[in-house]
């Protein structure tokens, strides 16, 4: 069944959605949307490095994303620019540097469209294996650090005072972010990764009353967005990556109706 490109696309998308759900919840809770965006933009630089050094694209994107986040931590500690200005600077510099550098390499043709918006319909069996194995590693690691990371998210001082080691959890979380960006870049593209992290989580928030429930719901919503988006793109011949995001947006808008409020207030008794 993996021979059909549409089935492969569906399974790859679902794999990403399953991981993006819980990770996206932390991105939303910790207000890291811009941070994620910066990592995603740095992926363009990662693609250039991959071509230049002739290494695997995923590995290269992952390494560049980790380097950017370390650089960010260092610059934040040094003080000076405010966090959001710093992120804006790093984010767009990495994107522009990557694009300029790629243009110098006239002997390679890089599909910019695919880089920015993804090319889910060209997913190979190998890509599929990488997405699911990588995804399970990310998900497993997140489960392991969940308590520590969650305590640090609620209140870092409290977590530290009661022996939860928030620094280690934060660091691991950053690496997991870099990993998901590396494995999902090909599927939804650099510009849409963050949408897949944030929109399902934000949608789940409107229904959930507890953090774990929100994580679970955001997985469901992400899977629905991938399924709906892909079928829509097949039906109306629209670009697949953006279609998935549009579907996620539609689901979010649905929760603005009174039904979602009712679901939530029922559980708060």
């Amino acid at each position: 069944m993996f021979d059909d490109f549409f089935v492969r696309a569906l399974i790859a998308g679902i794999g990403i959605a399953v991981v993006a759900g819980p990770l996206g919840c932390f991105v939303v809770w910790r207000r890291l949307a811009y941070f994620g965006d910066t990592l995603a933009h740095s992926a363009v630089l990662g693609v250039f490095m991959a071509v230049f050094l002739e290494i695997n694209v995923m590995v290269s994107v992952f390494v560049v994303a980790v380097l950017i986040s370390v650089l960010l931590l260092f610059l934040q500690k040094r003080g000076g620019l405010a966090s959001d200005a710093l992120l804006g600077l790093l984010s767009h510099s990495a994107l522009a540097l990557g694009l300029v550098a790629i243009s110098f390499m006239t002997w390679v043709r890089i599909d910019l469209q695919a880089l920015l918006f993804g090319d889910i319909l060209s997913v190979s069996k190998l890509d599929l294996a990488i997405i699911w194995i990588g995804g399970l590693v990310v998900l497993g690691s997140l489960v392991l650090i969940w308590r520590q990371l969650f305590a640090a998210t609620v209140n870092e001082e409290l977590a530290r005072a009661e022996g939860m080691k928030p620094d280690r959890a934060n660091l691991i979380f950053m690496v997991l972010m870099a990993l998901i960006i590396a494995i999902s870049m090909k599927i939804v593209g650099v510009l849409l990764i963050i949408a897949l992290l944030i929109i399902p989580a934000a949608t789940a928030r409107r229904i959930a009353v507890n953090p774990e429930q929100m994580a679970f719901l955001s997985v469901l919503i992400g899977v629905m967005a991938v399924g709906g988006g892909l079928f829509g793109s097949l039906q109306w011949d629209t670009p697949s990556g953006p279609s998935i995001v549009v579907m996620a947006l539609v689901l979010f808008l649905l929760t603005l109706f009174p039904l979602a409020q009712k679901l939530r207030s029922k559980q708060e008794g």
Partner: protein
Amino acid sequence: MLGTNSLVSLNNAGIHRANKWLVRGVGLSIAPGEIVTLIGPNGSGKSTTAKMILDVIQPDEGSKTSREDLRVGYVPQKIEIDWTLPLRVDRFMSITTRLSVAEIDENLERTSVRHLKKAQIRNLSGGELQRVLLARAIARKPNLLVLDEPVQGVDFSGEIALYELISEICDELQCGVLLISHDLHVVMAATDRVVCLNGHVCCQGTPDAVAESSEYKHLFGERAVGALAVYQHAHDHQHLPDGTVLHADGSITEHCHPEDGHHHDHDHDEQYEEKSNV
């Protein structure tokens, strides 16, 4: 002062930030079953001192020692839960400790907020939140309970009830308590030892001994004497909003430490006497 039995102790500890000493020369220890209260005006380093005790920040000078089996329960001054994070009271109870449903109920019952079990943390009133924070901290069965202004947002009768509850819990768990407070009168009723901070330790001792000492009257003013007196701080120096210090003689310095010229009747002043009279 630093007994071998103490749960945690600071020895001449100080925190230096942005070219200023937030606190310096803090010596303080807490024994099991003992209630120690930190008092002092805003910006006197109460929270900074508590953070050193809690291992949230490491002293830049001096040292901190703690017993190996130290188990901290912390009630922060406030906790802000963003709208994006759905968090009910029952889930909040177990953020750092695994608890059974029975343990959650029992501890919420103890601070009389069991009926709020399913409420969102974000929607609690100030007093309700303080009680939930306390319930969460004691559910860990700590041997050191650190409370940062635990009666904030609680009305007067609730305040006394909460303090009684804290001393009851302290008796029952035989845990040490470090309390950071603004209210002198309640502090005097419940505490074993008072430590007065103002960028450094001004004075410390049992409430009675401190209250009767001339140093205390000198530091706090006559009005602070008596169990229900209104707490007013009348130090011989005042911390200005920009972090500098205005002394009784009208001089302004960067710090309130001995070498900067301040005028407490402490023995540590003597060695700096010449400088401080410049």
